């Protein structure tokens, strides 16, 4: 994150002059519950990848998945849809 700017340094009207800047906004800090993925149980059905609203689940070459904790808000949809309980929600430390 860039340094915190004062009102004097901001472009007028809260305009964001560069597109795609939402990627800089790490929403992972909103999380209360954290999904933990147990790869040994995963059957590569990709239901979690399809269902993640963020999307914060990355699909890998071999169709296993990885959770992107920079953006995961901890909604728990992935754990809920997983048919083999390969994702568990735990309290964020």
């Amino acid at each position, binding site marked *: 994150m860039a340094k915190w700017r004062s009102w004097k340094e*901001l472009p007028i009207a809260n305009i964001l002059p560069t597109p795609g800047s939402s990627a800089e906004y790490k929403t992972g800090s909103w999380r209360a519950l954290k999904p933990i993925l147990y790869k040994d149980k995963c059957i590569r059905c990709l239901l979690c990848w399809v269902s993640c609203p963020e999307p914060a689940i990355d699909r890998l070459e071999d169709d296993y998945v990885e959770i992107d904790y920079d953006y995961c808000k901890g909604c728990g949809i992935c754990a809920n849809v997983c048919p083999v309980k390969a994702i568990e929600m735990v309290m964020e430390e």
Partner: protein
Amino acid sequence: MKAEVLGRGIRVGMNGNSAVAYAVKQADVDVVAAYPITPQTIMVERLAEYVNNGELNAAFIPVESEHSALSTCVGASLAGARVFTATASQGLALMYEILWIAAGLRTTIVMALGNRAFSPNINIHCSHDDAYAARDAGWIQFFAENVQEAYDLVLQAFRISEDKDVLFPSIVNLDGFILTHSLEALNVLKDEEVKEFLPPKDPVNPIDPDNPMTYGPLDLQDYYIEHRRQQAEHFKASYPKIVKILNEYSEFTGRKYSPVKTYALEDADIGIMILGSSAGTVRYTVDRLREKGMKVGVVSLTLYRPFPIEDIKKVVKGVKVLAIMDRSYSFGSPGAQLYMDVSTALYNLRERPLLFNVIYGLGGRDLTPEHVELIARRAEEVAREGEVKETQIWVGVRE
């Protein structure tokens, strides 16, 4: 009969609505999005005719509501267009959420507001409820006293809103029916003269598909307050620029414009402060009261937002009692809207006039010279007693 010439321009007769529409045509706007509502309807009709006749090369966008009208204006203004809309009363109320967005996104929309009372009960005549409802939203607000001023202020509003040291939308208030529908003589500029005073808009950060930007994104605990602080400071800082442009127009036309107008105030013990068309009635009465030896003067505001705090402090300095007239009512507040503004502005001064608030004219009830005399007499009484026993009185109402 020799026509009286008041400053630059050609003498014509128009009602307030037509004069505003004529100014908008001369300003050569690009987009008009408005929804007709009494008493502003004629404005929108005239503009539709101008576009239809080919006299005005603009997109006239008919919309299904005032909410959509102002939303359309926001988009068009950000795209770089010179934009006009008009409304009144309930229409302004329906625009409310977009009012704040238009100001916060620093659009340069000019809106004419044919001031009309809020419902209930349904009434199409003048109160200043709608103007006051917009007071906190970040729009510059002017009050016209007559049709000439309505015409002149629309032209100045475009120039002011679009100035790079300003970049805030403007509302030009004109009293419903009293000005919107009254036929008055006024001087209108030639098209070339308007072009000289008001060059085409040079937009700041316009929407450009080749260089996309985000307007009005999510803004949470980390930056929202900085953006509000910036808007507050920029709005305050626009004041000297507004005055500068009013002065420039005054020189250009020979018609004097300034945020605050005073009349017979220099040696006055009693002042009466008012907005809009009734200022003329107050001045007329003041002349008569002066003949009877009363030292009364008038303060009327052309600029209502940003509020001309320092100018008001200066002009009311020697006044013993100031009656502040509101054509609206603020339920449960310590006074009506203009009264609260003036009280706040003067409170920390060591020497200040005693103040009381007068509610008048709601829903188009006439303010008569008899009412004004009653107010002046009341002020005289307050001056004699040295205290305000009743902070708010009503005139022109059956008790």
